[in-house]
């Protein structure tokens, strides 16, 4: 994530030379696959399908191993997200403070369900399980920025500020 800098407004197209440089920058480290995937997703916004063969070749793994890792971890995406990713906490402490109602509001405000992206490509909505903000619940992340003490009005204000009305 942060390895590739601030979240980008739009995601760059696949370029093998860029991907190769990112993967090779991680290849010398022990256990390089997760750092390499973070670097790729940090740059491209997701892990493009073309990266699987490249990772396998560079890191001396089978494509199945690479695919297995990408699909095991919820954070890694195989499709481009919207310009912003909004992650609303679903865990118990946030439930105790109304995260179910907040999530329902978010879905209806954005017109999408979890794991979906708005038609204009502005927002992807994801569930997340604990952001460590349990004393200021309910909480969410917009990209890498944490927010707490949310209710429907504050959600609308923040989402409008971040992604437009």
């Amino acid at each position, binding site marked *: *994530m*942060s390895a590739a800098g601030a979240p980008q407004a739009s995601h760059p197209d696949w370029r093998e030379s860029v991907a190769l440089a990112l993967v090779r920058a991680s290849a010398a*480290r*022990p*256990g*390089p*696959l*997760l*750092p390499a*995937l*973070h670097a790729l997703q940090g740059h491209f916004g997701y892990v493009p399908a073309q990266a699987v063969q490249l990772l396998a070749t560079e*890191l001396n793994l089978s494509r199945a*191993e690479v695919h*297995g*890792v990408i699909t*095991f*971890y*919820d*954070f*890694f995406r195989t499709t481009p997200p919207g310009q912003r990713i909004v*992650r609303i906490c679903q*865990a*118990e*402490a*946030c*439930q*105790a*403070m109304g995260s179910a109602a907040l999530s329902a509001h978010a879905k209806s405000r954005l017109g999408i369900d979890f794991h979906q992206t708005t038609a204009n490509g502005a927002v992807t909505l994801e569930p*997340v*399980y*604990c*952001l*460590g*903000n*349990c*004393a*200021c*619940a309910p*909480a969410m*992340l917009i990209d*890498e*920025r*944490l*927010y*707490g*003490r949310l209710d429907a009005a504050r959600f609308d204000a923040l989402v409008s500020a971040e992604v437009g009305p």
Partner: protein
Amino acid sequence: MITVYVPRDSAARSVGADEVALAITQEAARRNLPVQLVRNGSWGLFWLEPLVEVVTPGGRRAYGPVTVADLPSLFDGHFLQGAAHPLAQGYTQEISYLKNQERLTFARVGLIDPLSLADYRAHEGLVGLQRALEMTPSAIVDAVTTAGLRGRGGAAFPTGIKWRTVLNTQAAQKYVVCNADEGDSGTFSDRMLMEDDPYTLIEGMVIAGLAVGATQGYIYLRFEYPDAWQVLNEAISTAYAAGVLGASVLGSGRRFDLEVRLGAGAYICGEETSLLESLEGRRGQIRFKPPLPAIAGLFGQPTAINNVISLATVPVILARGADFYRDFGVGRSRGTLPIQLAGNVARGGLVEKAFGLRLDELLYEYGGGSASGRALRTVQAGGPLGAYLPAAQFDTVLDYEAFAARGAMLGHGGLVAFDDTVNMASMARYAFEFCALESCGKCTPCRIGSTRGVEVIDRLLAARHKARELELLNDLCETLQHGSLCALGGLTPLPVQSAIAHFPEDFGLSPSDSLIRRA
């Protein structure tokens, strides 16, 4: 020059600390007042965040919760001189929530600029490491053992015994791994420590390296903590530049290298063997034990794998002595526990106290009861795999054994409070849902049993004759408990069965139902 503190902790930022900090600077400039702004860590008084402090001759005075809209009246009311104001909380150290704590691991949290190594040194930082450098590895392990430190990640295994095993296992390369995959809901002490006093963790890991003979450390951090990622990386780079890390730790000629690795959203990677698999670049599936990670851990080498708080407690043990630390606490639970008050509680935050406090003292005297103003109905202790305790058990003492005696688990010290609007059947269902979502898939009871659990709960709720479904649920829980390879499947029955035992009415059951299993 007047020094003003505004926390940079992500929880404080999540409720507007950055905006308040910026507005203070601007307003001070506009009024031509000489203000120096320091971004400190959070004291963990989260209901008061953003908590602004002003340094006065008598000490730091606190104001909170401050919004940008409050600033004109704060400036007009001379808060820079520590004057009275509706948001004034008095001297920070005198706030009763804080004053009555026993902060050992969190001694510097809130007090200092987290990234200032000079601040860190000025407040007893690196004293423990200096001591450790003069000791034999075995003496360091002895100190940690004598102190009675037990794994703060939740399992409460004695840290010294784990380290002794790594020390006694011969290998060319050993590792220290910090488990910073704090995924339990209701817990945030790891996050706070990493964001608000990162050098303590670094120092603890270097000492661990000296103790067990490891020269490489990894911090496995969850992606959900982007602020901690930034702070840790910056702190590590400062520590290298200052010679705290690298080829010659504090000029001793002994090496310790440290790197942060990012997880990718898998709760199971908080389980130590899954974490090691993930660090090695694989799916986070758990490993069979034995061998223990202490004997064959990361890359097959002896590995001391410990929770953030366990490692961050080592410096104070070395600095003040094992006896000093051991003299806090009760029974076999020695020292202090950073307790996290969360969920539906009026004053949520971090309370570091010696073991031995009662749950109701925490919930009412510290927490101030529910945030909603309604009656508290239950508390889930120890994360999503912990039991739900009813109000009748709020007299439980915070001590690993006292919780275990009631069929509950103290775990990482996270307490999530719920008011009387909670539906315990939906919480029980959620426990299975979460297990299904996060199961690594390696063992059948957890992989399949979690999904069957959701279905059985749905049938139990819908059924008119509930005995059959309840019996099935009990069987399923027994299978999970005894047949799972790790705590995810093994402990998921705990929240489920405690919810049924203590709140049968939420499941349409009668309290006298003979099939209700009691802890």
